[in-house]
């Protein structure tokens, strides 16, 4: 017994890992809510939307995995004014994320930082005006891997994304220093 433990094959050690090991990936979607604030604005605009995300990464240790995540939110009925719901708002965040599993169960904390982009499309008489911007993105959240098999899991995610995308220039209006905060509840398929 003393001799067998150190010479256990690599595949056996790998299956002992409580959660993700080696290369892993995750694809998911879910409802989200966005809150848009700006400099000089006395109030914020909130709206619902559809979110989707993909993550891919590797393993740092038994408890820590690192990956790259792309997250997006789409709202086709957005408006910067409360009476308006004719615009399309899209935001995307590409971030390096770290997932920390504090125990051998599937629960994890997530944190990450990266870049972000925002696109706001306003229909008008001469077609559509689009404002594109790039900026910074942060994300934090929690999740749980529910194992289906050794290779697959269903993962739930609750996350916040803070993206700052600069000035949005709309027909007849300029919105300065836009910061979009998104809250997302997602469910995903994870191979691990």
């Amino acid at each position: 017994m003393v001799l067998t433990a150190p010479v256990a094959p690599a595949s056996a050690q790998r299956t002992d890992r409580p959660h993700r090991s080696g290369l892993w990936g995750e694809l998911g979607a879910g409802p989200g809510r966005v809150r848009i604030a700006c400099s000089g604005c006395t109030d914020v605009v909130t709206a619902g939307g559809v979110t989707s995300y993909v993550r891919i990464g590797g393993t740092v240790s038994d408890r820590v995995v690192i990956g790259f995540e792309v997250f997006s939110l789409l709202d086709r009925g957005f408006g910067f004014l409360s009476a308006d719901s004719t615009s399309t708002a899209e935001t995307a965040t590409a971030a390096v994320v770290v997932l920390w599993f504090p125990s051998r169960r599937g629960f994890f904390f997530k944190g990450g930082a990266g870049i972000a982009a925002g696109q706001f499309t306003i229909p008008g008489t001469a077609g559509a005006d689009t404002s594109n911007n790039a900026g910074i993105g942060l994300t934090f959240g929690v999740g749980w891997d529910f194992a289906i098999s050794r290779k697959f899991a269903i993962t739930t995610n609750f996350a916040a994304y803070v993206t700052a995308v600069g000035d949005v220039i709309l027909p007849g209006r300029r919105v300065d220093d836009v910061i979009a905060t998104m809250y997302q509840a997602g469910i995903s398929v994870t191979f691990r």
Partner: protein
Amino acid sequence: MTGPLLAVLMAVQFDSTPKPHTVMAIAQVALINTFVNRVDAWVFKQDWARSGTRVWGEHLRLGWEWDEDAFTTNMFAHPYHGGLYFNAARANGIGFFQAVPYAIMGSWTWEYFGEKYRPSLNDWYMTSFGGITLGEVFHRITATIRDNQATGRGRTLRELAALPMDPIGSLNRLVRGQWRARGVNPPEHNPGSYVFRIGGGVRVAKRLIADSTSARTGAMLVDLLYGDPFATEYRSPFDVFGVRLMLSSNGGFSSLRASGRVYGTNLNNPAHRARHVLAVNTRYDYFKNPAQSVGGQSIEIGINSRWPIGSRGYAFRTSLFVDGILLGAIDASGTGLGVRTYDFGPGGGARWEFGFDRHGARFVRVFGQWEYIHAVSGATADHIVDFSGIEANIPITRGLGIAAHSTIFHRISRYSTAPKDERNYPEARLLLVWTKASGLKL
């Protein structure tokens, strides 16, 4: 207010084993925020500190904005404050990576609940990421200054010298009786190898005081290379870091830069004479001169190489790094809405260095750095900053030497609604320096 502060700090005296004390660390982070808020409200009568449940609710509803504070406040004071959160964790036995959430959450709670102003996104970035870099630098420098084997007045002076850089760690040690008790030093006490340089002299530059004339001011340099990427195999984050502080008699900080290795690995066999080492660093930058006030928090990845010459310890040394700026700041005209005179934005760039050293102590150093910042708050602008220079250190006697530096700062800013702004700022420094190096066996 001092009651709860003392209560928590008194409790730590029963808590002096090296295992992590999560509850104590969280309590001290909360206490830092409460203490700073109440001192500002009660002692300094600051209206912004009169926060309460109504304000908290409003902040939770409205969320983030960009603030209008002074450059030095945002780019130095906030990272220093973040270092307090980070070191509340480190002083309670929590490791580097585990201490990161303390800086992030300490700043988040301050922004939402500590002041009447709306939460500031730039503060959150600078306090969190700057606090991690400066906090770990201060944690390791103070661990080196403090000596648990020392006694008497020398011991007290060491503890006092560490206090401004790591006040939370110093308070914990004071309450635990560790300012006097003899014991084993932590691993960070011995960097393995280091080069420490301190010097003073003159700084000569055009546009330093007036636009057209050259002027002379006093200058002071503090330079520390803690560990060496070739002498120290990667063991833990910041086992190798460099920090440089430059002070000027006409304006305080002219630069503060810290860069620490969070991961490293050999790219070739360590037994080879020529060595190549990969490093991932976190970096803190703060530069203030007539061409640019620029700073930020970055992550860089690159290769350090060293090529020995002969058998007397001489070698060429090169570095090549690319970086991503998580959030930077640069002075800009037409920044816009409020009193702030600089832009915030992410970016990226690269830096290179070529040096000549003996046993790790550099005699000549030629370097350059280029960075791009895209403004997301302030003017609608793209900024390119670059600086390059040459530094020579000429030994006179054992430890003492002359340092001659020549640096050119340059920036180009392109605005969507204003003319292009291009500025040059050449600067020369002549300093008498004292160098202390130890443990370098390269």
